[in-house]
């Protein structure tokens, strides 16, 4: 296999297409849109990787997955081996393969992508992750127990990954979640047609097999405080991954009309509370016939496509910049367009218009044009004078970002930064000894893989602090510590 060197000329030139649910059918269901590769497709796509000796793709991945290594194993029909490579860096390959903004991360840096389409790294990762779930590979490793109790606040990707690492290190881990079900944004935000609940459940089951305990309906800060956790409750270390929450409203006239809601509310009702099955489920769904969604990030795309599936006849995206600046994953924008979503680029809402009953009847907008670059390096949208116009809608969904959730700040002595997020050093350590934080509650809204990376970084620091040192990584284990390959293990070294 490795004998003949691959070059940009010898590899399959076209990216292996992935089967997708037909747009006309899928706007009537919540089944997954992207059907994923089968084994033959994955093998073909894996042969497009140049196995670069200095792979740039790895630099693009926030957790530095050894991408050529896992792809090489796939090419050698060793899916299990590919999984082992992935498992060294990521807890959730089936999730990240689906939801990472690959075009800005790994695939955006792929060497093959300079001349051809980049290797479909995300799809390959998902293929391996799905196989692992289907065949139950996340086996329970040998874990030597330690006397340490670790508490994790929030069950999103950052909390899940920190929990996994600490459980593997032999700690007794409890995850506290405010909602009645764990998973964070993966559960309440990202809809089933992008990330099926079955995938989240499988990943959570994997954690339970590691011995992680989940305590739901537990609002930390109010039921007990962070200080109580490290004090009277006896946790040796605590990780806070409570996410960004607190949606922003536009602050324009008409914000509080009925029919104006945040994307978080729409998505939570639909995904977590099952409101799309109302009235067989008790939570009602705000349902518009003509819906406008303000914003163009991942949250906006989800709100647009959920509205479409709930039966809205006309769904419009209002975004004040142009398509080039749109922060959503490329695949989501593409899928939304296929599903008949109307995009009004360079359009800023000025006012939500209401009728006599206080219900939304429309939005008054203004055309924008792109001016000089702003602090974010993107060209600043400036209003075009005299370009105001109205569109008729009966529901307006804001997906324009979130602020820090205040609860932990209100109830603990933790130092916060100016914007209200928890202040940490680069390892995630907070101002309280024994307490780490990571994910959106530290960085503001970011990505699943970044949150996961933060959880793992904090776990590494926690282990050091508790005097548990990790035996390098699994790959190094067979040579360095003589442990059999495939056994996730940690050799503990007392750090004086």
């Amino acid at each position, binding site marked *: 296999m490795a004998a003949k060197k691959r070059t940009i000329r010898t590899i399959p030139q076209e990216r292996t297409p992935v089967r997708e649910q037909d747009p006309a059918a899928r706007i009537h269901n919540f089944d997954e849109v992207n059907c994923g590769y089968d084994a033959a497709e994955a093998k073909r796509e894996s042969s497009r990787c140049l196995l670069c000796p200095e792979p740039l793709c790895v630099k693009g991945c926030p957790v530095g997955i050894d991408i050529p290594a896992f792809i090489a194993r796939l090419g050698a029909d060793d899916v299990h081996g590919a999984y082992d490579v992935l498992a060294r860096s990521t807890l959730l390959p089936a999730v990240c393969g689906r939801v990472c903004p690959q075009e800005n991360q790994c695939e955006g840096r792929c060497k093959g992508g300079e001349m051809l389409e980049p290797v479909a790294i995300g799809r390959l990762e998902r293929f391996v992750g799905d196989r692992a779930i289907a065949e139950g590979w996340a086996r329970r490793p040998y874990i030597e127990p330690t006397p340490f109790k670790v508490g994790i606040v929030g069950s999103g990707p950052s909390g899940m990954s920190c929990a996994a690492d600490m459980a593997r290190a032999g700690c007794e881990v409890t995850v506290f979640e405010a909602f009645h079900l764990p998973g964070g944004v993966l559960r309440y935000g990202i809809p089933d047609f992008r990330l099926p609940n079955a995938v989240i459940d499988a990943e959570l089951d994997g954690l339970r097999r590691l011995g992680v305990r989940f305590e739901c309906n537990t609002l930390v800060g*109010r039921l*007990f405080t962070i200080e109580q956790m490290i004090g009277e409750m006896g946790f040796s270390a605590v990780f806070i991954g409570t996410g960004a929450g607190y949606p922003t409203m536009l602050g324009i006239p008409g914000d509080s009309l009925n029919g104006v809601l945040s994307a978080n509310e729409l998505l939570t009702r639909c995904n977590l509370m099952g409101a799309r099955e109302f009235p067989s489920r008790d939570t009602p769904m705000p349902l518009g016939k003509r819906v406008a969604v303000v914003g163009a990030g991942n949250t906006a795309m989800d709100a647009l496509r959920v509205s479409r599936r709930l039966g809205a006849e006309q769904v419009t995206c209002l975004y004040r910049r142009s398509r080039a600046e749109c922060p959503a994953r490329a695949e989501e924008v593409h899928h939304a367009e296929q599903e008949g979503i109307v995009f009004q680029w360079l359009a800023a809402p000025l006012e939500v218009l209401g009728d006599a009953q206080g219900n939304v009847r429309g939005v008054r907008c203004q055309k924008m044009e792109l001016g000089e670059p702003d602090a974010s390096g993107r060209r600043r949208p400036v209003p075009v004078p005299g370009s105001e116009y109205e569109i008729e809608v009966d529901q307006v969904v804001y997906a324009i970002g979130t602020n820090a959730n205040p609860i932990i700040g209100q109830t603990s002595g933790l130092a916060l930064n100016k914007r209200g997020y928890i202040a940490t050093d680069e390892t995630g350590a907070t101002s309280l000894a024994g307490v780490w934080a990571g994910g959106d509650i530290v960085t503001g809204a970011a990505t699943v893989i970044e949150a996961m990376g933060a959880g793992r970084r904090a776990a590494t620091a926690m282990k050091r602090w508790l005097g548990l040192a990790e035996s390098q990584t699994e790959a190094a284990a067979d040579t360095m510590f003589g442990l059999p390959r495939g056994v996730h293990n940690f050799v503990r070294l007392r750090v004086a």
Partner: protein
Amino acid sequence: MTQSDTQTNTATGYEIVRREDYSDVTYMLEIRHPLMARAARPGQFVIVMSHPEGERIPLTLADFDAARGTITLVIQAVGKSTREMQQSCQVGTRLYAVAGPMGVPTHLGHAKQVVCVGGGLGVAPIYPQARGYHEAGARVTSILGFRNAPLVFWEDRFRAACDEVLLCTDDGSAGLHGFVSDGLRQVLAAHPDVDQVVAIGPVPMMKACAEVTRPLGIPTTVSLNPIMVDGTGMCGGCRVKIGETVKFACVDGPDFDAHQVDFDDLIVRLRRYRGEEHAAMERFSEHCRMHDMAAGL
């Protein structure tokens, strides 16, 4: 705190240990939750799901007893979820989810002469505040409003926890004939040194009380009850207008300065799901009818 205290019953649910019915629509549930019984403070609330397909409904902590390890809710059956719970919640059964205590606890400042006004549904939720102010050393007068005498409940509890209790009924069948806002005027006339008023109840009632105290400049707080989903500040569904700013009642409240609250905005927003709520209720009533027929009733 012991290890078993941190178990929050995710797997097993939350046991109902006592139930009392105060009328054909008002019922009390006492629920075992030792950790919450210890953490709860006046002014806070919980979110309850009675079963996994249920709705998350916010309910004020009407009482909590750390020694007994229980919390108490008083619920008015107004729609699908609260009526269904009226049927299904019996002693020994379990609620699927109880999360909290949510909201910022009432700030029991240094007030010396306090009036607590509870109307209908608001009588139970104001109880912890009345008791809290009293324990903090204030002289407390409670004004309790009901439609008629048979609906009166917890008068004894208030008498035990307050210095003075004034009962009002809409039809005059018990206590003062009139609304609680009339009672409030009367009490304020008798006690010119009142330095804090708290009002909890239906929105028009809280609005009326705010108008009574506004010209007198007496600090007044109300507990707002917008529609909620998560109760953790994540959905923005509970936003309320306080002066010129937008606040989320679940994490910034639910107590707010009555003189700053935009009550009309709240009234409009509470109507938001009326159509859907009606549909759910119809379906539920139909279901009950079928059930009764099947049972030969």
